[in-house]
């Protein structure tokens, strides 16, 4: 198992957000975590990454317990997060952002190869490589955020709401790219756009009020009455 989350609880201050989340991300797969606003999707990713401190439970990366490992060391161990709001370095160029993505020692050594890989994946970024990140369109910034995370050579990529604020055509292109990534790694995708996410997933979880309430293969979830009514609008 590339990533295994077991009975994870966390929150902010005294406010508990996650109540015993468990999920599994097998090698070379795309797994989705779906749910409404405020359900705890982003908090799950932040807690897995270690930016938000876990209260209970375990995070295993490739079978190793990394629950208490600080975020920068998790990146070294092969976990990468494309955060909500992209969190690019706006005053740096596209290429500088990518080079920052290869900050860890493991990634630094392979920087040139990885750079070619992400430019092949997102040719648009290569065209824009001298442009400042803050001046690009939303779709391009999202590409850059994913590309920057790839620069760290992750085994598991966590992606938070890549579709937020993007046009449908841009979203479908982006999701096709995410799907291609599973040849190289595992992806845990957090999304509100349930239909688009189910299309590229191998397995999916539905989170509401900080608890996993449903899980299954995409076709099973798409046939589920609750999912249909609450998320697919049919």
């Amino acid at each position: 198992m590339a990533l295994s989350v077991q009975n994870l609880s966390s929150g902010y201050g005294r406010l508990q957000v996650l109540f015993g989340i468990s999920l599994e991300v097998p090698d070379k797969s795309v797994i989705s975590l779906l749910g409404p606003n405020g359900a705890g999707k982003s908090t799950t990713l932040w807690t897995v990454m270690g930016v938000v401190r876990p209260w209970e439970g375990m995070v295993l990366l490739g079978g190793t317990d990394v629950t208490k490992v600080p975020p920068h060391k998790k990146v070294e161990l092969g976990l990468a997060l494309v955060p909500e709001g992209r969190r690019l370095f706006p005053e740096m160029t596209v290429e500088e952002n990518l080079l920052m993505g290869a900050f860890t020692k493991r990634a630094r050594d392979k920087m040139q190869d990885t750079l070619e890989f992400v430019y092949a994946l997102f040719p648009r970024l290569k065209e824009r490589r001298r442009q400042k990140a803050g001046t690009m369109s939303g779709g391009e910034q999202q590409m850059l955020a994913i590309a920057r995370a790839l620069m760290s050579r992750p085994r598991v990529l966590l992606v938070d709401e890549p579709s937020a604020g993007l046009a449908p055509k841009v979203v479908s292109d982006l999701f096709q790219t995410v799907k291609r990534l599973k040849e190289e790694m595992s992806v845990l995708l957090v999304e509100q756009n349930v239909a688009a996410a189910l299309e590229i997933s191998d397995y999916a979880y539905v989170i509401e009020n900080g608890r996993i309430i449903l899980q299954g293969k995409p076709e099973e979830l798409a046939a589920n009455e609750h999912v249909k009514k609450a998320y697919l609008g049919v």
Partner: protein
Amino acid sequence: MEVIPYFLSGLIIGSVYGLITLGLSLIFGVLRVANVAHGSFVMIGAYVAFFGFTLWGAPPPAAGIGALALGAGLGALVYYVVVKPLMKAGELNILVALFALGLLIAEAARMAWGPDFRGYTWSIGSVSLGGLVLELSKALGALTALATAVGLEVFLRRTYFGRAVRAVVQDPVGAQVVGIDVERVFLLSTAMGVGITTMGGVMLTLFIPVGINPYMGGIYTLISFVIAVMGGLGSIMGAYMAGLLFGVFQSVGYYVFSLMGFAQPFEMALFLAFVLLLLILLFKPTGLFRL
């Protein structure tokens, strides 16, 4: 053109104003904390210069290196004792704690060294430049300041750790997710910032004829804040350039007001510099430069 010497001497003192502001701007950019104890570290640097010279005969450039190391140590201590424990309590708490620390340092200095003004003279000759009799010691102070500003800028742009600092300035969360140890950047930036400030205090003693005392820091906290905001908080070259501008305004302002023969030219010159700040903030609220 009688104004030229005033312009030049403004550039010279402005260079040191810039130096004093670098550390404040760096710490603000990285930690989003305004170091209100800033002036007290300038004062410590000034005493390093004074004691270095009077006790050991160390020339100010040597004292500058000593102050840089001492200040860096103090900065690390401030980070561990004041900033880090209060990080979760919020910026306002850190601000108040730093304010208290500034007072504490000034009072400790008064108890140790007394409240009187003290001074020393380090003379290495002078040259005549565009109508200005320029003391070489001042020129050296200004050049040290320029070299420090350029060196820091190159460090931030070219080195691995420097890029990590810029990343934290631009987006701390983004920095964390690319694998930067943000806490380490906080620590080293505070150490570097306070170190440079203390060194700035050494260079400042070459310019203040009335000498130094434990309470001299206050005005430099104020001036540095004005310059840092003018330059764009967090911008290193911005802080330096704004320092030059501030120095020129102060010096040329002094000349203009002394011609007009009313009010106190020195106070009016400071007034003019603050008017400049207001104008810049009105028309370019993010400051003149950006990192």
